């Protein structure tokens, strides 16, 4: 991308400073995940029976859990799981949604069939769909990604389908077809490059909602294995101590909300700078 392009991408954040906060939270998450061993004050797995269920103080900023593990350290390490699930679900949604949506737009008959199937899947609430898939696949990190991704694959496919239909009718696509271009040429040279911006918007929203989905699965004990630090797992483990040690719910809960909210802000800001013809494709999101 040229310099102009980068400047264009920064304008939405200048125009909407609150979205900058979102961007900072995302950055903080990446840093926390990458440098967890250096940033975390304690080993997140280290059990300390003497200091169990300690409220936040100067030694343990976020307090400790029922095994005496440091909540702050566990919360920092959890950023890894959050990033992994978020990125995984975005990847899953795009890797399925792009080919299905684009091919459906280019081949109306195939599209008719595929879009009916997507509509059927869309009729299920995404958490219900995720639960059903986990029951079939069994709980694991990879299966969490697939189960949550399946729900966002449908909305992503719908959006890509709508955008690709519009792009297919563009005059420059006509011009290209009049030169004898094939499907592959149209997709690579004309359709995908014009989908990048709207897909970035969609990716932000999917990433945000994936956090809620992952937390729900973890909380129900159907997500990441319980020994892996994740905000959902932290909530699940501490729910019996809600009155004695509310900080155990407060901090991971806050992280989940903060992450989802921030990514939504980023998505909103990016959406606002989209081509107006593309913007209404996101009507149902956010």
């Amino acid at each position, binding site marked *: 991308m040229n310099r102009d392009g980068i400047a264009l991408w920064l304008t939405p954040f200048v125009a909407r400073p609150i979205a900058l906060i979102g961007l900072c939270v995302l950055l903080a998450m990446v840093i926390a995940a990458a440098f967890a061993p250096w940033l975390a004050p304690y080993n997140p797995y280290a059990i300390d029976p003497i200091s169990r269920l300690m409220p936040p103080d100067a030694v343990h900023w976020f307090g400790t859990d029922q095994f005496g593990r440091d909540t702050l350290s566990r919360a920092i390490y959890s950023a890894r799981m959050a990033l992994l699930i978020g990125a995984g679900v975005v990847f899953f949604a795009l890797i399925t949604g792009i080919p299905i949506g684009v091919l459906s737009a280019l081949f109306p008959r195939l599209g008719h069939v595929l879009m009916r199937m997507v509509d059927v899947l869309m009729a299920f609430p995404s958490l219900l769909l995720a639960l059903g898939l986990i029951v079939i696949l069994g709980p694991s990190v990879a299966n969490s990604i697939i189960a949550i991704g399946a729900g966002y694959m449908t909305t992503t496919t719908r959006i890509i389908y709508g955008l690709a239909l519009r792009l297919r009718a563009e005059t420059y696509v006509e011009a290209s077809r009049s030169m*004898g271009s094939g499907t592959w040429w149209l997709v690579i*040279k004309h359709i995908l*490059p014009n989908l990048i911006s709207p897909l970035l918007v969609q990716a932000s929203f999917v990433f945000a909602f994936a956090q809620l989905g992952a937390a729900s699965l973890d909380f129900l004990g159907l997500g990441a294995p319980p020994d892996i630090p994740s905000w959902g797992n932290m909530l699940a483990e501490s729910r019996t101590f809600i009155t004695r040690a509310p900080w155990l719910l407060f901090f991971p809960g806050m992280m989940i909300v903060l992450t989802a909210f921030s990514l939504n802000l980023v998505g909103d800001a990016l959406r606002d700078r989209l081509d107006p013809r593309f913007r209404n494709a996101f009507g149902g999101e956010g």
Partner: protein
Amino acid sequence: MSEPILQVSDLKTSFSVKRSGRKYSLKAVDGVSLSLSAGEVLGIVGESGCGKTTVGRSIVRLVQPDGGAIRFKGADVLAASGSALRDMRLNLRMVFQDPYASLNPRRSIGDSVAEAGDINKVFKNRADRATRIAETLTAVGLEPSFAARYPHELSGGQRQRAGIARAILPAPAVIIADEPVSALDVSVQAQVLNLMMDLRERLGLSMLFISHDIGVIGQISDRVAVMYMGRVVELSDARGIVDRSAHPYTRALMAAVPKPDPSQRIAGAIETGEPPSQLNRPVGCAYAARCPLVSDRCRVEVPELRPIAPDNRLAACHNL
């Protein structure tokens, strides 16, 4: 003139459209015959929706006609495949109306201009490609450095020049120009028209020039075909259309052209009414509902294009 380079005979193209749940066949082009000689500019004029663009899109195979034939240098365009089709793609090139919509905002001008060459693998190597792009941009009056720019950096006139460059890069024989200036500011229309006429001279292009503006058409065409509701109603040399139009519809079109001197305006010849619906075409002459010369025969029998006195021009009208 010599043997036509492009010949369209009895072309019929329809679209299936849905209105209130029912499917209809919309006859956008309903039996059009045209021939274009080498080096000639044939104007096609007619009001919005009469099927001008559809004729052009049929020729470059963007829509599949239901009937009729299109021949390029004697070869069947509609049945062409393989290398014959490739040859036609490179020789029959279209310039589109809206220069804002016809260039992909995410592709550089150079990539857009070279597209026909890239798709059909006509460049020997990268250097050859760059040279051809630079030459073509220069030919349309743009700096070669425009190759690296993107459409949003260009004005409307510059974009349309790029659109023309894209059309002429493969050294085509025929340009189908679909209202190439009507989306441009009046001030740049003349420049772009001049460029096209200049290119026609230098490159020996034949041109199908589509417009709804009979004034523009009259200036630059050798011959003019007037279309009404999917059919050609009058075909003559440009002077014959502009100065001595015969068909009642052409006369109405001419009368609607703003005249600088009000006393020259033809009184009472101004159009009345809209054309009838294309989904529900009248039985006889499609112009009957608006025609001042209408007679009973017009309502039952479709007038065929035939030579009429005194200059043997072609017109489709019972009462001339």
